């Protein structure tokens, strides 16, 4: 039941928005086509604007992943994490989550195929991925789109709350799935 409702919501939200907004605009006598075009013109500007910011951060993250630093970090931290009920295999996932969305989904797929889709560890991995964002990417794109290079406390605050989300994910998964 819940599954069907969620499916319907995720299937129809987007088309519904795309229908309702232009219809309402016509009703309000807004020149729809001209207005749409004048907004859409900004798309190119934004896309080009974020290039240097995205190149800077993706290169740094790519180097970090290629160097094997994540495995090293995992090896150091795993004894501590085992004590709080987090399987050591999930640590690389936790480290990569704020850095790369596709990387995180990749690790999750790997965990699902080694342990099975219904395993406890897979569910915990899924919750961890679903509960946080690709923080570095989001900050880079959003700030980059308006030309901001001084983030002040944004990155620190977001990494602290990412960490909190992981802790919540571990605790609540342990309660919900075991």
């Amino acid at each position, binding site marked *: 039941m819940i599954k069907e409702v969620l499916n319907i919501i995720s299937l129809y939200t987007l088309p519904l928005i795309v229908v309702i907004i232009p219809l309402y605009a016509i009703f309000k006598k807004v020149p729809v086509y001209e207005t749409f075009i004048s907004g859409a013109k900004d*798309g190119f500007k934004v896309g080009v604007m974020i290039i240097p910011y*995205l190149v800077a951060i993706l290169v740094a993250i790519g180097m970090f992943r290629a160097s094997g630093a994540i495995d090293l970090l995992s090896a150091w931290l795993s004894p501590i994490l085992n004590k709080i009920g987090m399987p050591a295999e999930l640590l690389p996932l936790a480290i990569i989550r704020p850095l790369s969305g596709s990387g995180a989904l990749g690790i999750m797929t790997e965990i699902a195929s080694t342990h099975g889709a219904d395993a406890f560890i897979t569910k915990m991995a899924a919750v961890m991925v679903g509960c946080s964002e690709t923080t570095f990417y989001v900050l880079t794109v959003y700030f980059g789109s308006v030309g901001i290079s001084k983030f002040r406390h944004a990155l620190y605050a977001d990494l602290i*709350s990412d960490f909190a989300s992981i802790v919540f994910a571990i605790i609540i998964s342990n309660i919900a799935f075991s």
Partner: protein
Amino acid sequence: MGYIWVFLIVVSVIVAIINGRITEVTQAIVDNAKLGVEISLSLIGIMAFWLGIVKLAEKSGIVTFISKIVQPITNLLFPEIPKNHESLGNIAMNVSANALGVTNAATPIGIKAMQEMQTLNKHKDTATNPMCTFLAINTAGFQIIPASVIAVLVASGSTNPTEIVAPTILITLLGTIVAIITVKILQRFFPIKDEGKKDD
């Protein structure tokens, strides 16, 4: 950001030397520089489309309407933004789109919100408090439908992929509260530096 960026690069090279993975790291520079451009360019189409739709929402008064509805919450979270400012409506739409897992609409709307907040910014290269608060809420990732994760679970043959929905809602709700508290506390320790540039 500068320190973390340099830290990532320096650590990568040192670890690569120890691990004997220097070729991989060098290759990663080339690949990811290319990836950065590819992602940016591939965003242009969908970005243009949603910025067009958002413009319609703006001109027809939908954004202002949403701004008014969410005012009790946004006044608390973004005291620096004037009442009924368009950015508030876009912030609300961005958070809703993310919550419903409509990511490709959420990003352009979020960027629109940033652009509007940027008009209130006196130091164009520096993040303002409302921007940081907005991004803290955004990256805390409040989710009702974790679409991409459910997709992976379905593809892996999970018997009950929507089982993760309830925990996800609870965790991201808690995470969002922590994010708001953290960002509000930290903002006191990161004042905007005035570098004696022209102030307009």
